[in-house]
């Protein structure tokens, strides 16, 4: 076993070559803890780590770090999403220190959806740094013990350096354009310091397979662990919305026709998801899956169980 960077469960499982399962949890839009408790109970035994979104689609929710601390207190392993949209480098680094102090060991560095999609379209955007710069900043904090401004992470000249140690995640969308740039963008994130990647929702398996082939050809799969993003379609409305309105999501016509013609689209969506998992498990360079069920956390144990991925392995 190589020397661990963060010591997180996710890192240990990836390091051991387990096919990992992560799942996404959108924090509540109020301070009602029941919403969070219900989601946690659905996910806790079926995912190795739980992604906590950072005001996803620019809609105000409980902060990803506060929700992650809530999970840590229950002995669970969060992946804290950090978006560049709302905070400058001062606020992000301060929050990273706070996250580390709260027991968070995995960070996912993302650009963040534009504020025009959310419930406060008149907000001022920040984007002081972008996702590649964020990855590099988190790595420098961990590996060099320095803040972005160059100062060491310690309380006085005589004090020891106490740096936050995170496993650094990033995202990539194999379905966005320019298509030929998409593996290069992944490589750039790996060069910046990404340890693992969670991809945008995969529906077009052929395009994903082509992207993965290039990833493997360039040897990137040996430098970064790639988790394929999956979102089961559960209604005609969702299918239409994902196909027509979400930039960067590609649903092939054949899949749309299959789901559209199904008697029970929810069941068919789960079947499609299971077929995808089967194919992804056999695909070279794919280290696991990331389930983004969007307010349908109860589907996660069903999917993971039916895919034969339960019980989840222990880290120690």
């Amino acid at each position, binding site marked *: 076993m190589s020397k661990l960077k963060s010591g997180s469960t996710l890192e240990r499982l990836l390091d051991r070559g387990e096919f990992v399962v992560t799942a996404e949890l959108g924090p509540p839009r109020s301070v009602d803890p029941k919403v969070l408790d219900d989601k946690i109970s659905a996910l806790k035994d079926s995912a190795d780590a739980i992604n906590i979104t950072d005001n996803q689609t620019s809609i105000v929710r409980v902060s990803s770090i506060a929700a992650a601390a809530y999970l840590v207190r229950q002995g669970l392993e969060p992946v804290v999403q950090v978006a*560049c*949209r709302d905070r400058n*480098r001062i606020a992000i680094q301060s929050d990273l220190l706070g996250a580390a102090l709260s027991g968070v060991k995995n960070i996912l560095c993302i*650009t*963040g*959806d*534009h504020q*025009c999609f959310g419930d406060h379209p008149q907000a001022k*955007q920040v*984007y*002081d*740094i*972008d*996702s*590649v*710069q964020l990855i*590099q*900043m988190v790595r420098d904090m961990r590996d060099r013990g320095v803040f*972005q401004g160059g100062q060491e992470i310690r309380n006085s000249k005589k004090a020891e350096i106490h740096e936050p140690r995170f496993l650094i995640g990033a*995202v*990539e*969308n194999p379905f*966005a*354009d*320019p298509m030929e*740039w998409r593996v*290069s*963008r992944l*490589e*750039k994130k790996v*060069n*910046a310091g990404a340890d693992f990647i969670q991809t*945008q929702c995969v529906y077009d398996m052929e395009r994903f397979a082509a992207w993965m082939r290039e990833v493997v050809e360039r040897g990137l799969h040996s430098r970064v662990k790639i988790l394929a993003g999956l979102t089961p379609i559960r209604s005609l409305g969702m299918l239409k919305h994902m196909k027509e309105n979400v*930039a*960067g999501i590609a649903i092939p016509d054949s899949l749309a026709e299959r789901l559209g013609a199904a008697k029970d689209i929810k069941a068919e969506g789960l079947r499609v998801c299971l077929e995808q998992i089967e194919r992804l498990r056999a695909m070279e360079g794919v280290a696991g899956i990331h389930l983004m069920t969007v307010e349908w956390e109860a589907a996660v144990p069903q999917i993971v169980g039916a895919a034969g991925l339960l019980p989840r392995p222990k880290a120690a």
Partner: protein
Amino acid sequence: MIVAEQKPIQEILAALPEVDNLLVAGCDTCVTVCMAGGDKEARVLCAAIRMSGKKIRNVETVSIERQCDREFLSELSDKVSRADVVLSMACGAGVQMLSDFFPATIVQPALNTLFMGSTEEAGYWLERCLGCGDCSLELTAGICPKTRCSKGLMNGPCGGSVGGKCEVDPKSLDCGWDLIYKRLKSLGRIERLMDIQPPRNWSRAHDGRPRSVIRKDVRL
């Protein structure tokens, strides 16, 4: 040039006090080119105010070369001295210079100042520069990612770039990074995109402080 557009007439009227004498002041430089606040627009706005029923006895118009330049402002002294309120059709710099030059007069804006940009076609102006104070156009084939990317990213397109368009408006807004990518490729310099650009120095932009330029070599 600076591109601006006229505020909705209802907003202009609502903000105007009922006075005896109003002066509508056009500006003959940038806002004339973008057809928002030149001599012609000042006359049209003047007519609109007269017809609006707003209780203002006299509405006069004038237009000068540049409201942002003290050299031309003294031409306005007579007309401003007769006015209770001046409605400036210049950019924000012009409105503020008028206020500065005529400290006893109320000056109000008739335009929303938008950006530094170009005339692309008749009736189509495009933002091209943020004035960030730290130009790095040599890295991106002469296309500014801070200005042309909706998120101002520095290290390539985000995951919302599809078919050359930006997720913010996939019907009509070009993805700035798609433009940069294609131009770098056609110039045979695409490998430059793999260089990680470090965080920007925002202290050179307005984030640092309200900016000024003082050139000792040309000061009198």
